[in-house]
C-alpha cells in the first residue's frame, strides 16, 4: 500500500511540476520576449565565430551587433573570414561591396641571422619583448629579433622563425593581426594582398644609409633609386615604402626591383607558376605538414 501510493504520488507530482514549469516558462518566453534584429543573428551566423578580436571588437557577436545597428559600416574587417565572409555579410545588409582583398601579415625585415652585424652575446630570457629592452642584442634597432613572440602569438601556426627571421606561411595566414600586436618592434604590418604575390619593402630601418650598412648587409639604404623609377614607391624618413592604393596601376615591377641594390624589395605570398618553373632545378625543403598523431600511442613503456 505504501509503495503503491509513493509511486503514484511521485509520478503525479513530477508530471504536475513538468506541466506547471513548462507553462510558466512558455508564458515567460512570450511576456519577456526581447526583439532581436534578425539581421544581427544572420550576420553572427555568417561570421566565423573565432572571436579573435582582429576586427577591433570584443568578439564576433559584438562586431555583428555593430554591423546590424549601423554603427560600423565596414564589412571587410574580419580577417579569418576573408572575402567570402565579407560578401555574405554585405548580402545580408543589402549593400554593395567594393572590391576587397585579404589582409595578411608582412614582416618588414629581410635579415637572416648571418646578415645582421654588431651582434652581441645575449643570455637573457628568450623572448623578443625581453631582448628589445636591452641595447646591443644586435646592431639594428629596427629589425626582427627572431626570438619568436609572433610565433607564440599565432593561433594558426602560420609564422615561424626560420634562421633568425620571422617568416610568414601565407597558405596558413588568416590576417588576424595577433603577430603584429605581439611584435615589440612593430615591424609586422597587415598588407592587402591584391595579387597572390605581393611586393613589399622588407626593411624597417629609418636610419641613414651609412648607419644601416654598419648593422645589416641587406637593409634599405634609402638611396631613392626605386622612387625615381615608379610613383608606386615613396620615401618615408630614409626608408622606401610602397603605396598599396595604386598597386593595381603598376605594370613593370621588374624595373623597380632591378633598381634595388640591397635585398629590401622582396616578393612574398604564394609563388606564381612562372616562379615555380624558374626555380624548378633548385632544391627546396619539403613543406612540413602538421601531424596530429599523439606520441603516446607508439611509446613503449619499459619498467
Amino acid at each position, binding site marked *: *500500500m*505504501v509503495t503503491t*501510493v*509513493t509511486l503514484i*504520488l*511521485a509520478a503525479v507530482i513530477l508530471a504536475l*511540476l513538468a506541466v506547471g514549469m513548462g507553462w510558466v516558462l512558455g508564458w515567460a518566453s512570450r511576456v*519577456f*520576449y*526581447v526583439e532581436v534584429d534578425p539581421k544581427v543573428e544572420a550576420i553572427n551566423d555568417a561570421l566565423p565565430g573565432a572571436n579573435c578580436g582582429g576586427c577591433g571588437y570584443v568578439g564576433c557577436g559584438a562586431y555583428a551587433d555593430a554591423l546590424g545597428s549601423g554603427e560600423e559600416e565596414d564589412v571587410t574587417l574580419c580577417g579569418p573570414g576573408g572575402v567570402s565572409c565579407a560578401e555574405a555579410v554585405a548580402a545580408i545588409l543589402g549593400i554593395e561591396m567594393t572590391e576587397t582583398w585579404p589582409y595578411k601579415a608582412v614582416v618588414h625585415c629581410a635579415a637572416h641571422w648571418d646578415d645582421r652585424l654588431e651582434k652581441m652575446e645575449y643570455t637573457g630570457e628568450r623572448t623578443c619583448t625581453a631582448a628589445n629592452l636591452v641595447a646591443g642584442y644586435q646592431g639594428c634597432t629596427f629589425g626582427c629579433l627572431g626570438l619568436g613572440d609572433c610565433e607564440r602569438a599565432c593561433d594558426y601556426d602560420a609564422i615561424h622563425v626560420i634562421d633568425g627571421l620571422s617568416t610568414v606561411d601565407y597558405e596558413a595566414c588568416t590576417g588576424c593581426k595577433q603577430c603584429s600586436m605581439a611584435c615589440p618592434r612593430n615591424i609586422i604590418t597587415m598588407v592587402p594582398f591584391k595579387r597572390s604575390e605581393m611586393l613589399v619593402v622588407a626593411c624597417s630601418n629609418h636610419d641613414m644609409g651609412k648607419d644601416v650598412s654598419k648593422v645589416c648587409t641587406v637593409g634599405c639604404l634609402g638611396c631613392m633609386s626605386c622612387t625615381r623609377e615608379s610613383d608606386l614607391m615613396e620615401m618615408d624618413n630614409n626608408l622606401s615604402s610602397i603605396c598599396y592604393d595604386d598597386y593595381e596601376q603598376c605594370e613593370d615591377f621588374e624595373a623597380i626591383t632591378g633598381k634595388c641594390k640591397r635585398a629590401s624589395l622582396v616578393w612574398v605570398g604564394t609563388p606564381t607558376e612562372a616562379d615555380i618553373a624558374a626555380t624548378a632545378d633548385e632544391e627546396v625543403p619539403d613543406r612540413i605538414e602538421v601531424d596530429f598523431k599523439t606520441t603516446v600511442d607508439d611509446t613503449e613503456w619499459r619498467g
Partner: protein
Amino acid sequence: METVSSLILIFIGAALINNFVLHYFVGICPFLGVSRRVDTAFGMGLAVTFVITIASFLSWVFTYYILRPGAPLPLWVWNVMGGAEGATVDLSVLSYIMYIFVIASSVQFVEMYVRKFQPKLYESFGVFLPLITTNCAILFACLEIMKHLQDPTQLWGLHEALVLAIGGGVGFTIAISLMAGIREELDLADVPEALKGAGIALIVAGIMAMAFMGFTGVDRGVEQALMALIGR
C-alpha cells in the same frame, strides 16, 4: 536572540569554515574556469550567490511541503486514501530530479526576466547564468538543506535555509575572487613548464584549501562570544 546567533553561526559556517569550494570541493569547474580575471570572477560569484538563493528558496518550499518524511502533502494524500495510522509516505527519493528541475527552470526564468528588464545586468552576467544551471555548488546547497529537513524534531525554517544559501554564495565569491587575484599574479611568475595552466591552478587551489582549514573551530569561539553577549 538565540535564533540570530544560530543564523550567524550558519552563515560563518557556510562562508568560511565549510566553504563550498575549499572544504567540500563542489563548484570546481567555474572556480577554475572563470578565475582568470578578478572582475569576471567577482561577477560569477555574484551570479552564483543570486541563483543559489533562489534555488534554495524553491527547494526548501518543495522539500518542506512535499519531499521530506512526514511532509504535509503526502500525509494528506495518505489520509485521504484511507491509509493506516503511523505509516508515512517518503518521497525523498525524488529530491535529486526535483532539485535539478527546479534549478534549471528557475535559472531559465530569471534569465528571461533579467534580459527583458535589466539589459545592463544581463550583459554583465548573462553569459554566466546558463552555466550556473549545471553548477554542483547549487545542487549541494539544496541537498544540504534537505539534510536538515530529515529529522522532524530539528526542522530548519526558511530563514535558516536562505542564510545557508547566501553564506555559501558569499563563500564561493570569496574563494573565486581570491583565486583570480592569485592567478593574475601567477601569469608573471616563473612557473615550471610542466605545471603551466591547470597544474599550477590546482596546486594553488589545494594550498588555499589548506589555508581555509585554519578556520576550523572559529565557530566555537564565535558561539562563546555570542553567548557572553546574550548573557550580559
